[in-house]
């Protein structure tokens, strides 16, 4: 099984944008999971619902929302274009955006499970030893929740690789610019290029299988062997 230069470019592009989108949502996702797990605040239920929404909405619908928001006439798109001369839709940025939004719920959910598993009494003990809240978070909470967080990162990455519906609406399928693995498989099937479709399918399956399998191992395994 050998890949053409174009197929390699698509694999590299997909891995790059998915890695970037996962990195991008990591701090926000962890903060959201932390706030949802540890505190009660007004509007919490609304945030929980909105965060989960991309999981249940048709991806094409999510893509349409993003298109309306980030298009040149959309509120966010207009702002970015006007003030920073940055276009989002139908560029690689839109691919990252769609991947980030679609994978965000999975990261938050897994990270939240990770935070729930941390014995808060240990955090209190760290405080009695003189640790500030920030230190407690980075030296106790985060390491103890790390399996849930790592599982969330893997799931989010795998979801990003498999993203199709939102991406095609907000980023299109522009060869060399926004074409990802999923989009190329779709094109190849449409054009009857079965060999290309199957080669890329194998790549997708390997990435998705590895990520889901690893995340399952992490979630089920005890914290320390």
């Amino acid at each position, binding site marked *: 099984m050998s890949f053409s230069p174009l197929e390699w470019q698509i694999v590299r592009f997909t891995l790059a944008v998915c890695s970037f989108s996962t990195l991008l949502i990591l701090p926000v996702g962890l903060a959201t999971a932390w706030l949802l797990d540890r505190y009660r605040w007004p509007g919490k239920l609304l945030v929980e619902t909105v965060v989960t929404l991309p999981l249940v909405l048709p991806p094409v619908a999510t893509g349409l929302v993003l298109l309306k928001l980030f298009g040149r006439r959309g509120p966010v798109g207009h702002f970015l274009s006007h003030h920073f001369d940055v276009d989002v839709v139908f560029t690689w940025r839109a691919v990252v955006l769609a991947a980030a939004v679609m994978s965000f719920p999975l990261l938050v959910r897994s990270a939240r499970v990770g935070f729930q598993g941390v014995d808060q*009494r240990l955090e*209190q*003990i760290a405080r*009695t*030893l*003189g640790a500030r809240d920030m230190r407690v978070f980075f030296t106790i909470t985060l390491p*103890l929740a790390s399996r849930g967080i790592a599982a969330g990162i893997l799931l989010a990455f795998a979801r990003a690789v498999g993203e199709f519906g939102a991406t095609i609406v907000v980023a299109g399928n522009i060869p060399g610019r926004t074409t990802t693995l999923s989009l190329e498989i779709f094109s190849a099937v449409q054009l009857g290029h079965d060999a290309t479709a199957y080669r890329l399918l194998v790549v997708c399956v390997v990435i998705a299988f590895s990520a889901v399998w690893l995340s399952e191992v992490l979630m089920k395994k005890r914290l*320390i062997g």
Partner: protein
Amino acid sequence: MKLVIRQLSLHLQQFTLSVDVDIQHARTAIFGPSGAGKTSLLETIAGLRKPESAKISFNGQLFDDSERDHSLPVRLRKLGYVPQYDSLFPHLSVQRNLVYGSNCKPHEHTLDFHHIIDFLEIGHLLDRHVHSLSRGENQRVVIARALLSSPQLLLLDEPLTSLDAKLKNAILQQLQALHREFGIPMLFVTHDPVEAIAICEDVLLLQTGKIINRGDPAKLLG
């Protein structure tokens, strides 16, 4: 030492913890049956529980004053807390557990690491993982970790529970010598009169949230 607790009121499931007391002895036991409110009292002093009302100060430093809505953060109380539950950080080695407190305050004077390690005979455990420790070793490391944070008061919540007789005796002797060796006062929660008599010079008898008596442990419990 002078620990002053005024009009402490904390609602618990079965009753209200209601305490008004001055503690001046360096080795004081809080004695009572299970469910009397001993742990809750200790946790309130440590700042881990927020009472409905209380004015608590230690050596002139105000810990809590509900009237002024003041509560000193836990980390600033400088109390070494040894709880009943497993409290070693499971992702850190024994060594890293031990230095956790001193790493939090690198510019403060801390007790000598080797002195404490030798005193509690845990030098051979430093590179071990906490999951591999026996119950007795675990307790020694927890006590050492609390000491290494250079506390101004040690709060020990039934540290000898669930140890076999031989281990209990060994750690009991170390606790007896602890104040003499390091000069740190301690509040010692127990429901075992032998422990209270062996370690402490003053005892508060706590029952359903109230101090019903206090005095010399040997006279009250002997």
